[in-house]
């Protein structure tokens, strides 16, 4: 095992310290050129080549089987419909997937195996050329200059400037024509009193509109709302809307909760917005508009599942965590003579995300 050793004591081979100077661009050794070609088994042994051929053929046959398997899934399991069990649908999906996978992989793996084992594997060298030669570039430049000269555009600034003006203006109609992507303002069948962004300020809530359950539309009595409850609420009449139901719902959804009235911090002007600790807040997050629907009955936190904005219901839905930057709007509510919860008015500020005109 080489006991004679690698030189004497202290004869170490560490030469890193004396890093020498060298001309940049030349490497420590010259490019040795392509390594010699190493023949494959199939290049030398006809039996190996034959074996590879059989393997490829087997893979192609496997592909054929895959195609057949697809048809088994498609025709033997047959048409799916109301009586199809989930398991059957799953089985069909699996057979279609497995069949296609075999059909495709059989072909793909087969061809690649063929290329790898039987087709020539000598690496070849091709020379690169400059993208375009200098001479070409000079010619092209000359041609462009001639064209510009013959067009006289440089000599006649009046033509140039008026053309620039015309070309700059001409596309404007192509932009303006998209104005009616939002055509709701022109339609008489829609609520006409609110145009443009004014619509963002108004919802279906109004004085006396009953709070009803989402989705059933049944009204809610104050006594139904026990402490710790959370009701998902829509305005009465929403379900009966023929047109624009989802638009209205997107602004009007409300979460109704009852807390111990002593826990509520009520600011000035909002004293009569709750009913014995029953409070209603817009469910639309003030961040980017997801429904803030996760109510924790002991911490009294509302959490948005989209971006984790957290609001504290005891402090008028103030933001305590997450990306939202202002509190959820509160819906002022009261009880009517029959004991049903009703709105006192619309929201006092726009619901949902902040927009430029919001203020």
């Amino acid at each position, binding site marked *: 095992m080489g006991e004679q050793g690698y030189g004497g004591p202290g004869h170490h081979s560490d030469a890193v310290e004396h890093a020498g100077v060298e001309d940049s661009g030349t490497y420590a050794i010259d490019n040795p050129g392509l390594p010699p070609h*190493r023949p*494959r*088994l*199939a290049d030398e042994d006809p039996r190996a080549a034959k074996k590879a051929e059989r393997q490829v053929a087997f893979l192609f046959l496997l592909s054929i089987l895959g195609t057949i398997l697809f048809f088994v899934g498609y025709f033997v399991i047959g048409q799916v419909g109301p009586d199809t*069990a*989930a*398991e059957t*649908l*799953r089985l069909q*999906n*699996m057979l279609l*997937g*497995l069949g296609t996978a075999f059909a495709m992989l059989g072909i793909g793996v087969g061809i*690649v195996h063929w290329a*790898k*084992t039987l087709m020539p*594997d000598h690496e070849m060298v091709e020379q690169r050329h400059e993208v375009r030669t200098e001479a070409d570039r000079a010619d092209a430049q000359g041609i462009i200059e001639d064209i510009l000269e013959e067009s006289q555009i440089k000599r006649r600034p009046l033509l140039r400037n008026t053309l620039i003006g015309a070309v700059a203006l001409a596309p404007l109609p192509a932009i303006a024509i998209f104005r009616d992507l939002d055509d709701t303002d022109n339609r008489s069948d829609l609520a006409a009193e609110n145009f443009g962004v004014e619509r963002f300020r108004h919802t279906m809530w109004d004085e006396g509109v009953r709070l009803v*359950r*989402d*989705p059933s539309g049944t009204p809610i*009595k104050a*006594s*139904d*709302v*026990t*402490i*710790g*409850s*959370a*009701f*998902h609420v829509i305005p009465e009449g929403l379900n009966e809307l023929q047109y624009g139901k989802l638009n209205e719902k997107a602004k009007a959804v409300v979460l109704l*909760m009852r807390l111990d009235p002593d826990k509520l911090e009520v600011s000035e002007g909002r004293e009569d917005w709750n009913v014995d600790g029953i409070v209603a807040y817009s469910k639309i997050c003030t961040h980017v508009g997801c*429904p803030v*629907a*996760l*109510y*924790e*009955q*002991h*911490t009294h*936190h509302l*959490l948005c*599942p989209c971006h*984790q904005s*957290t609001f504290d219901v005891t402090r008028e839905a103030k933001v305590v*965590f997450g990306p939202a930057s202002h509190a959820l709007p509160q819906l002022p509510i009261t009880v009517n003579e029959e004991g049903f919860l009703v709105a006192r008015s619309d929201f006092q500020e726009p619901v949902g995300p902040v927009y430029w005109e919001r203020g």
Partner: protein
Amino acid sequence: MKALAQNRRHPFAGVVLLVLGLLLTGGMYALASTMNQAQAATSGTSYSAQDISEGEKLFNANCATCHGFDAVGTEDGPTLVGVGAASVDFQVGTGRMPMQMQGPQAQKKPAQFNDEQTAQLSAYVASLGAGPAVPEDEYLDTDHEDVNIARGGELFRVNCAMCHNAAAAGGALTRGKFAPGLADVSEKHIYEAMATGPQNMPVFSDANLTPEDKRDVIAFLKTIEANPSPGGAALGSLGPVSEGLFIWTAGLGILIGFMVWLTSRSS
């Protein structure tokens, strides 16, 4: 079987196997506990004085440390007067109570009391003040002729999915709390959870979701639990995150394997 063999060496095979294993044990556990509870429910709807006094003994020995004698509550645990039998049956029956330690929320674990003891505890707490009772079998019967699964699904999406996920796979709440997955929870415990609002879950009283509504929700949950995803393995029903993770690991992993093979020299 062919499919199974194909994917045996799949980079995700371990995970899939693990998930399958968990689902299987979960399913068997659910089956076992459902059978137990079915027996309990038949015997435990009306409580005898004997049950109450036995329950009191159990309570004083196991629960009073935190909830106080006569369940009036202490700093460590709330009062249980008026929480009802359903609450006790849920908390004790799912092993959440007695709690192992204080934490963001009580965790599900193997039940510490048998069905009889649970019923006795429920009887005792119910005797302290009126509250939601253990549900009648009628409202747990998901094969009932009036059951409407689609309506249950709608109610689930409006009232429950934001915390528990659309496929009831569970989700996160604030500060370490979470809404558990509902896949292996018995009908009775789902009902009781809705009725009593355990931990931070809001209460869905009968005035909010009627017993029939609750039954529809339960029937919906049991339907999606019983039926496998038609598209194949559900990847935890967690939506785009697990799908994205899967394409980056398994999808690209398999393809890189093919790529390396394809560009390597044949021997």
